[in-house]
């Protein structure tokens, strides 16, 4: 085929962003559409584990092998998103000895570097481990920031000519003469410039091929062309602690089970998880027992968790898939492998490929396989380069140390900024302007926030995921109004207020699951600041007040006449 194929990728999670980058690098004309912001779906709701493969070394060795392979690739191409914490599978006295041996053998079989260490050695590494932990298997697990990784993939795709449209929901698949030829999209209609790319309105995007990379939502896209994609969404809870009780990924060494992993992530530790099938990936119960189970069960491994401070919990929905003929009863039995569904082969409807299943760690490999599949369809002669070319921010990593000297960034804040930005540090921080800290919990400066706004527009949630601002202890209590201030005057006051309200509500959503002890105190402080001092609960811009009825000051002759009764300019 002579012309450049036009590809629409639906879904802005790790898989979609990975496919978009891969295809754009191979020269395709790519448009990525995402209904929320990048990582809106499952990618933004995972525990941040960079798998060594150890977790699957007994139950699913194909996945385990893929994990260790991609683990090595990501350390290289996404170094600014990865923290190689190392991991351990720890065994308590009541856990099965034979399973421990199987795990060790499985790691060996899958080329996962694994070493048995004693309970004492394990506690030397992680002093808060329970005193009765017998022994552990040490593996190269790590932590990865899914937001940063997806943003970097999208940025790379964009550098290679891709168009990225967030807050743009696919409302229909275009089917003409027995072929899918594009998508109908509804662009976000929030006030002002809240979206990346086109604002509001409908658009028909024609394509030579559509890639459905919507994970747990893949069935909904399939339905639009009467295709049966039987994704089995399965929810899992993640509970975030306010500090890192551990600096190493701690896995419980026993067969599948809930509440068996602790991942140190930036300033926090994330406890996970559960595995329960749900009907609707957007509407499922988030329940107290799940949070309590995380804390109670994982405190068997790290006892101090029982009385530690949690700052929020969130749930993610795994896009599990298995061929219909398998018919697993329990979602924990469903494979973590991924499946490429060519709808021409499978359903006789050309023009779309769906990717389902899989896991975050192998997102790049999945992207490569889909891209191979797509380019083959169009007879393009282009090899995958995503395993070799570093992502923006991870280029010339050795230069990083020089930046830190150059900018005098020895302070903890400077170091954290540079770690987040990687090789983009100079471009972002070297503004020559004063650079005060806006988010004290996470040490995020004005320069980083401005950089994020230049990418995310007025969507403060987009700025949040790029910078971690508002993701620490106070959950935005002290910084959300500062972040809002950074949007002005580029965005008008009404847009800023709208985005400010959205971030307040988004932060509240997760905190609800951590409201006891210090975090309940924090919630009350935040409420007092936002409602009492800022009056955001009865903001007179939306709850009009009659200015003339109020005190005009001591000894004042300026009392307003009734003709100057104030009215909200834009009450909605």
């Amino acid at each position: 085929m002579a012309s450049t194929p036009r590809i629409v990728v639906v879904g802005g999670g790790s898989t979609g962003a990975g496919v978009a980058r891969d295809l754009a690098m191979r020269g395709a004309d790519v448009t990525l559409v995402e209904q929320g912001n990048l990582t809106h779906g499952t990618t933004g709701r995972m525990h941040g584990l960079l798998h060594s493969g150890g977790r699957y070394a007994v139950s699913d060795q194909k996945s385990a092998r893929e994990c260790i392979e991609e683990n090595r690739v990501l350390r290289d191409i996404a170094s600014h998103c990865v923290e190689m914490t190392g991991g351990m599978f720890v065994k308590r006295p009541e856990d099965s000895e034979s399973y421990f041996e199987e795990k060790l053998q499985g790691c060996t079989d899958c080329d996962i570097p694994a070493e048995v260490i004693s309970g004492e050695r394990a506690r030397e590494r992680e002093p808060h481990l329970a005193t009765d932990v017998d022994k552990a298997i040490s593996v190269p697990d790590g932590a990865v920031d899914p937001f940063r990784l997806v943003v970097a993939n999208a940025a790379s795709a964009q550098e290679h000519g891709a168009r990225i449209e967030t807050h743009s929901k696919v409302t229909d698949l275009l089917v003409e003469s027995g072929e899918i030829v594009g998508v109908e999209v509804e662009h976000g209609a929030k006030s002002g410039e809240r979206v990346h790319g086109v604002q509001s309105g409908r658009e028909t995007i024609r394509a030579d091929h559509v890639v459905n990379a919507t994970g747990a939502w893949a069935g909904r896209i399939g339905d639009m062309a009467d295709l049966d994609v039987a994704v089995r969404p399965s929810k899992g809870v993640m509970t975030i602690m306010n500090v890192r009780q551990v600096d190493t990924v701690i896995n419980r060494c026993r067969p599948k089970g809930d509440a068996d992993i602790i991942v140190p992530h930036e300033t926090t530790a994330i406890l996970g998880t559960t595995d329960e099938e749900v009907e609707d990936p957007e509407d499922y119960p988030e329940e107290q027992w799940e949070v309590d189970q995380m804390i109670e069960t994982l405190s068997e491994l790290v006892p101090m968790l029982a009385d530690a401070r949690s700052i929020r919990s969130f749930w993610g929905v795994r896009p599990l898939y298995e061929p219909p003929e398998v018919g697993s009863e329990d979602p924990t039995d469903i494979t973590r492998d991924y499946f490429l569904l060519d709808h021409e082969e499978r359903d006789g409807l050309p023009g779309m490929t769906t990717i389902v299943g899989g896991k975050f760690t192998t997102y790049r490999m999945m992207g490569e396989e889909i891209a191979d599949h797509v380019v083959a369809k169009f007879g393009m002669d282009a090899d995958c380069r995503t395993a070799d070319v570093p992502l923006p921010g991870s280029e010339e990593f050795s230069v990083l140390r020089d930046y830190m000297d150059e900018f005098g960034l020895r302070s903890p804040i400077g170091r954290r900024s540079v770690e987040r930005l990687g090789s983009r540090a100079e471009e972002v921080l070297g503004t020559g302007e004063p650079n005060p800290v806006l988010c004290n919990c996470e040490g995020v400066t004005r320069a980083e926030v401005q950089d994020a706004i230049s990418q995310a527009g007025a969507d403060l949630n987009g700025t949040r995921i790029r910078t971690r601002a508002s993701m620490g202890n106070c959950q935005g209590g002290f910084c959300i109004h500062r972040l809002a201030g950074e949007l002005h005057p580029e965005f008008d006051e009404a847009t800023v207020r709208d985005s400010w309200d959205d971030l307040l509500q988004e932060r509240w959503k997760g905190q609800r699951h951590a409201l006891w002890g210090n975090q309940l105190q924090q919630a009350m402080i935040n409420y007092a600041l936002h409602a009492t001092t800022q009056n955001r609960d009865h903001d007179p811009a939306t709850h009009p007040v009659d200015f003339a009825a109020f005190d005009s000051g001591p000894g004042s002759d300026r009392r307003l006449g009734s003709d100057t009764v104030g009215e909200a300019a834009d009450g909605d």
Partner: protein
Amino acid sequence: MAIDSEVLVVGGGLAGVTSAIAAARAGADVRLVSYKQSSLRQASGLIDVLGYVGDEVVVDPYDAIPELHEDHPYRLVGVETVRDAMALFDETVDGYHGDHTETNALLPTHGGTVKPTARYPAGAAEGVASDDRDTLLVGFERLVDFDAPLAASHVEAAGAPFSADGVTITFPGDLQADAKVTRYAKLLDQNSPVAVDGRKVDTRSALAQRVASHLDGHERVGFPAVLGDDHTDAVRATLAEELGVAVFEVPMGPPSLPGLRLEDRLFDALDRSGARYEVGNPVVDYEGEDRIERVVVERNGSRVPYSADQYVLATGGLVSKGVESDREGVREPIFDCHVPHPGDRYDWFEDGVFDDHAFARFGVDVGSDLRPRGASGSVEFENLRAAGATIGGYDFAAEKSGSGVSIATGYAAGRAATEDLT
């Protein structure tokens, strides 16, 4: 030997101090003990009495109090007690305006909107929003808690009867990027010369010069609340004189200088009242059955008994840890007074950030005598009263009633404790 007094007040915030002053003025021998800095440093320094009942904004708090539910602290102590308590505040605490009327004022705050309040510091007085003078708001480039151009647009969107503009300037002198508000205040207090275009100019004048070129006919200028600490009136006066227009401060969040100044003034008033006080050691325990015989203060690792005839519990609410919780429940930590709360933790909150949260009303349950009551409704201790945010059953943040409830219940508890002296 226990350290002895007639009335012992536990807690050094607005409620505790008011209670101690009220008791001392009624003739009691009073001692106040407080542990950490009070939550005043987080508060705006405005003295709210009642700003909202439900979603309705309140013009006259005294008119609106009867609309509150009958167990609200204001209803328990009665409207006249609220008036008397505010009169005590006006008489004893310097530097506040608003007592010329029972009508609320609308004050601009750093969130960029206005809020109803009953008393405001002199420094904020020229900023009252029911005043049609055009306003220039000034922010400082590195002071991230106040974005003046956004605040100006926001206050206009709120329908204020004046036009507002905002400008962001660089504060004169060498300030590091993350200078604290107290650092700005200190520079203005000291008024040391700073270099401007090679010349030495006093800090206040240098600031006025930077603002002057933006005045453009505005009749008043609002700054973030950093205009001095010890000499705030002088700082404001100098700026007003040099600019030739009225100058005011916009109250901000923590750390809040107006809140810290209020704390200083309260403790000055406490001093003058003759009550004794000590700060820095927690009350950790008590002895007694139906009556509290003594409380135990932890001082340098040792347990020191303090005895009194009457006690006032004014340790604050969730914010100040006068009320604590864990995954199992909610309690008052010193006397273990009953704190009503839903058994299911997921009923403590609602789904919207500003919905009607149960946790916002957590606190001890009191009757009209302000004595904490147990789950069965019986009085926990005959000589213990509660005041301020330790009391539950009202949402001070939504109502904008925190200061007024602290003053009213502090006053009532201090007076009642004195009347009950045996």
